[in-house]
């Protein structure tokens, strides 16, 4: 341990330099501190998968009381905003212009075929936005279904053929099925990925480009010290972000935090280290700021947003994509953090995912110091 004071002195000097460099450039802090706040507000308020009442054109080609009554049933759904339209031509025009999401058409023979029990309603959906279209289909189906049920009851029920099955639905962890609750915990993952990979990826690349890294090599500084000194200031920024995200989730969006706060904080710091290291690795490999920024964008942000289970459910993707997503550290942290926020402490999962993250820390530390050492030749 003779070397200990030397290490401490060198680290302190490097650390001071990195902190100064970080504080001097406003753009750094803008991304480090402003971007997370911006993302929190955008995701919390801007993105919503909850379809608000969808505009639907209703065409009554049959003006009998029963079809009117039926159509009125659509109005009962709080998810639909029906508008009566005189004929199909007009309805189609509205749909082509994107003014309505669907057309519900009651054909001329609707009431005549209602009694024998083979009446049809035509539902035309605008498939350009397939998610909304599917939701609207469900709402229309639900409205019609409950109307039929009421109609049946009014006719004295059909006890001869037996009762009916009713679904009692309970959504655990998110009783209201609110998409903000589902997106906001994932924000922590996104923010930490961005801070880490994007800010740090430029660090070493810049020194390569300017030649200052080579001057460092003639000093007694060792690669690991360099890595640590570069990581430390951004650790600080990252921890500020963890706190911001947690506060926003709790106070702004009222997302419950059911798991223990300490586990969330520790897991977040672990992931922060992974993502900072990933940025440094990119930085060391790319050696130019342009390449580093491109690689960081491609390796971190897009996959974290698209393939980690943040927005899209990984259960629905092909096996190959599942394998790709399992390689991403973001996926493991994402599933852990969503569980910790909404479900609570699941120790089996906490242990498994934290071990995976620790493995990434080890592998990435090794790889990063190696890219720096190799350059000495």
């Amino acid at each position, binding site marked *: 341990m003779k070397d200990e004071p030397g290490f401490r002195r060198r680290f302190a000097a490097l650390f001071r330099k990195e902190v100064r460099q970080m504080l001097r*450039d406003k*753009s*750094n802090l803008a*991304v480090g501190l402003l*971007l997370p706040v*911006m993302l929190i507000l*955008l995701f919390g308020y*801007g*993105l*919503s*998968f*909850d*379809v608000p009442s969808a505009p639907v054109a209703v065409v009554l080609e049959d003006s009998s009381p029963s079809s009117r009554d039926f159509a009125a049933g659509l109005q009962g759904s709080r998810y639909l905003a029906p508008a009566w339209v005189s004929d199909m031509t007009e309805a189609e025009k509205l749909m082509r212009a994107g003014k309505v999401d669907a057309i519900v058409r009651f054909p001329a023979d609707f009431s005549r075929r*209602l009694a024998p*029990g083979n009446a*049809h309603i035509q*539902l035309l959906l605008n*498939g*350009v936005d*397939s*998610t909304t*279209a599917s939701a609207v289909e469900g709402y*229309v*189906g*639900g409205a*019609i279904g409950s109307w039929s049920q009421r109609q*049946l009851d009014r006719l004295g029920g*059909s006890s001869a*053929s*037996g*009762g009916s*099955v*009713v*679904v*009692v639905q309970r*959504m*655990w962890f*998110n*009783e209201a*099925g609110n998409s903000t609750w*589902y997106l906001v915990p994932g924000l922590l993952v996104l923010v930490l990925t*961005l801070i880490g990979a994007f*800010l740090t990826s*430029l660090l070493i690349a*810049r020194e390569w480009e300017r030649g200052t890294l080579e001057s460092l090599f003639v000093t007694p500084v060792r690669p690991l010290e360099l890595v640590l000194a570069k990581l430390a200031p951004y650790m600080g920024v990252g921890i500020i972000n963890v706190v911001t995200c947690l506060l926003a989730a709790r106070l702004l969006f009222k997302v419950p935090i059911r798991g223990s706060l300490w586990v969330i904080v520790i897991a977040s710091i672990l992931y922060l280290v992974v993502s900072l290291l990933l940025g440094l690795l990119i930085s060391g490999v790319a050696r*130019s700021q342009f390449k580093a*920024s491109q690689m960081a*964008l*491609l390796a971190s942000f*897009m996959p974290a947003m698209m*393939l980690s289970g943040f927005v*899209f*459910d990984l*259960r*629905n*993707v092909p096996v190959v994509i599942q394998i*790709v997503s399992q390689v991403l550290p973001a996926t493991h942290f994402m599933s852990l953090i*969503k569980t910790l926020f*909404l*479900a609570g402490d699941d120790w089996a999962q906490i242990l498994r995912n934290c071990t995976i993250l620790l493995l990434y820390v080890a592998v990435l530390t090794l790889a990063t110091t190696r890219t720096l050492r190799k350059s000495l030749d």
Partner: protein
Amino acid sequence: MSAFVDAFWQIAALIRKELLAIVKDPASRVILFAPALMQALLFGYGATYDLTNVPYAVLDQSRGAASVELLARLDGTGVFHRVATLASPRQIANVIDANDALMVLSIPSDFENLLATGQQAPVQVILDGRNSSTAGAAAGYVGSIVTDYNNERSGAGGVTIERRAWYNPNLESRWNLMPAMIAALSMLQTLLLAALSVAREREQGTFDQLLVTPLTPMQILIGKALPSILIGLIQSTIIFLVIRFWFQIPMNGSVWLMYGGLLMFNCAAVGIGLSISALSLSMQQAMLYAFLLIMPLMLLSGLLTPVRNMPAILQLATYVNPLRFGVSIVRRVYLEGAGLADVAVDFIPLLAVAAVTMPLSAWLFRNRLA
């Protein structure tokens, strides 16, 4: 006339130099075109809201013919896969907490009896709400299966809904997401590329040299803008080809109109990039500011969630977002087969953004010297 020809060759030389600066390094070449291809494939498969696999568990305490029939219908969809058959209600929490099942169907012991005596027989559906979209979709699916089941039992037939979906017959979310990617994925890189172009020269000190050449700021602007626009269009083409021929999503509109929209969109995006570049003092700043902007542009574009679902104030903000209109033009031309008259109005914001940012950056070239 010869002045005009000279001006042309001057710009051509600058463009050639810019392109060389971007693609001279083999690694940079790869990074400009390979990721577009890779992301188109990955996201084509990965970015889906469609329900294809719902692992579920059953707690059947009635064990009658009716519950067996109901479960058979669920399994028959091919979407629901039974992963566990539970013996007691205490096990429900375990399978859901551990992520083994997305849904538990609990059928009480009096289910058969209630049905036979003409009463309402409740089935409990417990869903994992950690992913509320998937849970909601699964619940909707179960609901429609039960409705069908009831209709058949009551024999009334009732009212059937004939569904038809325009532009996307099977309502696949890939059809809706991928055309938008033609614009979105290329923007990521072109905006950064443009943002770096001037900043790099500033950092290396060559921009001052460029300013003392006979080139006018307008010529510098064109020389800087065109290579990025070109690369953006090539990336869009790669993504377009993957979508059209690999994923076989049919194109209903005119390819020319789509490219017209993409060209205009790229002009607007590159204009923003160049303005950032002219404002930044270093590459690092240019990149970070570009990145700061890319995020809201992506999120407020209607790519992932419809613009209509956003609060009014954010909807207003989307009017200055070129990606919103780029996505809209590509989606509508590609899927709906929209003609020029339908999408012309989307060109206006793009034109406006380009008309403001391009001259602004040309002016900044001269008036902001580091």
